[in-house]
């Protein structure tokens, strides 16, 4: 685990700073609900998001991306570590302070069918955050109409219920709701994963337009690497509850250092058929280990083609590879080095 958060000079003070964030889920069993184990969904994550920046967070299912997002917003209570919004502690905020902080940090969910209350007309759904924060019914309604318009829907349809909209339209409604309180930070929890590819592009473009219009900071959680590449300024790669590599987008995609990042990227299909034919996929062996029984040392070692003795004993600290490029690996790959070749050279 590390104490020095990612530093990127260009963007000024961070909007969000996450330090050593840990979220455990107890495993209970038996009649007395005895705690028999612990799943550490997020184990010591440190991140920063700057003003008007998009931080992409990628990783396999079950690596703790979603839990990370929800713990930052205190939809889940952190086990340890801290989250600060513009210098103010979120993890330590009182209930009344937290209510205030929620104005600034919002969330968009993955499943557009589960994220809207089926018994509420759309205008009410979007107006609700404003009503919670003391806006009058008329003012909230008027603002909801503006927002419906801002996300590219017709305000005439405010009286309709969520089931009357398509997935992409519903996602727009979810985005409008997140915008209602004029937040500075929005956590986008796989906002396009559930949508058709054609609709994905529309929603991603909408998100980018809104970001420019309202100077928003995004934490874009996804497993689709090409979407992340398109929208992110910086990218954090997570594996089993830990950040294994953070860098600006181009460094991650062009010079991935962590073996996991390389294998993850090798799975992205290329649009050019010639390049696609030559693409060498790194197929990892085995499955993601259970977060209830994490491997000793480096968590990735059980699937890493270049792991050594040292990896099973010593947990790699996250360290600076280059300006703004951090990696948690004992044997980071240098730019241009391919994991397949390195593994072959080591006789595996």
């Amino acid at each position, binding site marked *: 685990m590390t104490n020095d958060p990612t530093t990127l000079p260009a963007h000024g003070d961070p909007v969000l700073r996450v330090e050593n964030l840990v979220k455990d889920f107890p495993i209970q069993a038996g009649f007395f609900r005895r705690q028999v184990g612990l799943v550490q969904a997020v184990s010591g994550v440190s991140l920063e998001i700057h003003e008007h920046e998009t931080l992409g967070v990628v990783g396999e299912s079950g690596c703790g991306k979603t839990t990370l997002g929800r713990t930052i*917003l205190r939809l889940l209570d952190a086990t340890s570590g801290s989250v600060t919004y513009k210098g103010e502690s979120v993890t330590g905020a009182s209930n009344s302070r937290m209510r205030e902080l929620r104005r600034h940090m919002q969330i968009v*969910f993955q499943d557009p069918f*589960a994220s809207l209350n*089926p018994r509420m007309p759309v205008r009410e759904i979007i107006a*609700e955050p404003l009503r*919670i924060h003391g806006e009058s019914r008329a003012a909230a309604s008027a603002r909801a109409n503006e927002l419906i318009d801002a996300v590219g829907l*017709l305000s005439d349809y405010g009286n309709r219920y969520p*089931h*009357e909209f398509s997935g992409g339209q519903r996602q727009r409604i979810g985005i409008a709701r997140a915008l209602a309180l004029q937040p500075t930070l929005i956590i986008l929890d796989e906002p396009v994963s559930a949508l058709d590819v054609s609709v994905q592009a*529309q929603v991603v473009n909408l998100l980018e337009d809104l970001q420019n219009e309202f100077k928003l900071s995004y934490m874009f959680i996804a497993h689709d690497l090409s979407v992340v590449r398109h929208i992110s300024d910086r990218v954090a790669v997570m594996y089993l509850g830990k950040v294994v590599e953070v860098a600006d987008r181009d460094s991650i995609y062009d010079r991935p250092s962590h073996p996991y990042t390389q294998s993850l990227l090798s799975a992205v299909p290329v649009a050019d058929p010639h390049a696609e034919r030559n693409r060498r996929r790194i197929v990892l062996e085995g499955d993601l280990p259970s977060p209830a029984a994490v491997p000793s040392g480096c968590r990735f070692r059980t699937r890493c083609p270049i792991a050594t003795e040292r990896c099973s004993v010593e947990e790699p600290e996250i360290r600076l590879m280059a300006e703004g490029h951090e990696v948690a690996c004992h044997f980071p790959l240098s730019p241009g080095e391919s994991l397949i070749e390195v593994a072959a050279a080591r006789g595996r």
Partner: protein
Amino acid sequence: MPNTAIDLHQLEAEGLSIKPKSFGRQTWERFRRHRLAMIAFVILVLLISSFWIVPILSPYGVREINIQDAAQGVSWKHPFGTDPLGRDLMTRTMEGAQVSIYIAAVVALISTAIGTFLGALAGYFGKWVDALVNQMINLILVVPALVVLLVVGIKFGGSVNQVAFLVALISWITIARIVRGLFFQLKEADFVQAARAAGAGPGRIIFRHILPNAMGPVLVQITLVSGAAIILESTLSFLGLGVTPPDTSLGTLIAESKGFIDVTPSRVLIPGSILTLLVLCLNFLGDGLRDALDPATRKTRQ
């Protein structure tokens, strides 16, 4: 982006778009297509309204004794026959059915109130609140209901309201368990998380977000609880510990006539059939409601 808007406009122009349909309206439309439930619904409405209309039209009073006509079978003069005191059984049966319906309604009301309240608390707050409510439910489950009701009935039974209250004390647990489960499930739903992220407190989340989405299954359960309440009341009354004469209910009527099954079987069969029909219709109604409210888990075909 504007595509969606255009699409909707086009649909409107082509007459494909329809006025916003609320959830209630959609449910009704689905319910109407459920034939068995619709039949049950119609029978139920006819049956229950007849319970109130027939005694008004009847030339006989409920407690009007007429010894000349004592213990008759079915006839034009007395379609359901008469009892040994010569009271017209049609009037009396309707009166008794009124009481059974009244008890079912009171039980449904009380057990929904208690069950929803406790179930919501247990499901939303979990932890020790849940443990406490669960223990109460378990207690009622493990103790043989009928025996307890019989014992308590000896002390408190008799009046219609007392019987209703006793039955409700047992019936609320099924509703509480359903509400508890729904709350457990719904409090993790994304739309509830979104409300929390917007700063909504427990009151708003429970009443605006979770309860409206939990009412469907609860409604289904209410119909089933009403049916069960009618049966339980009849059982108690049959055993002489529910509604006692001169008040009457379907169970009391059957109890009074059980010695006459060889002489005038209609005396047992008529209130018995009405009882069965009522409960059957309530159950079909419940089935139809469940399918209409939750098309995903539909069991019967339309």
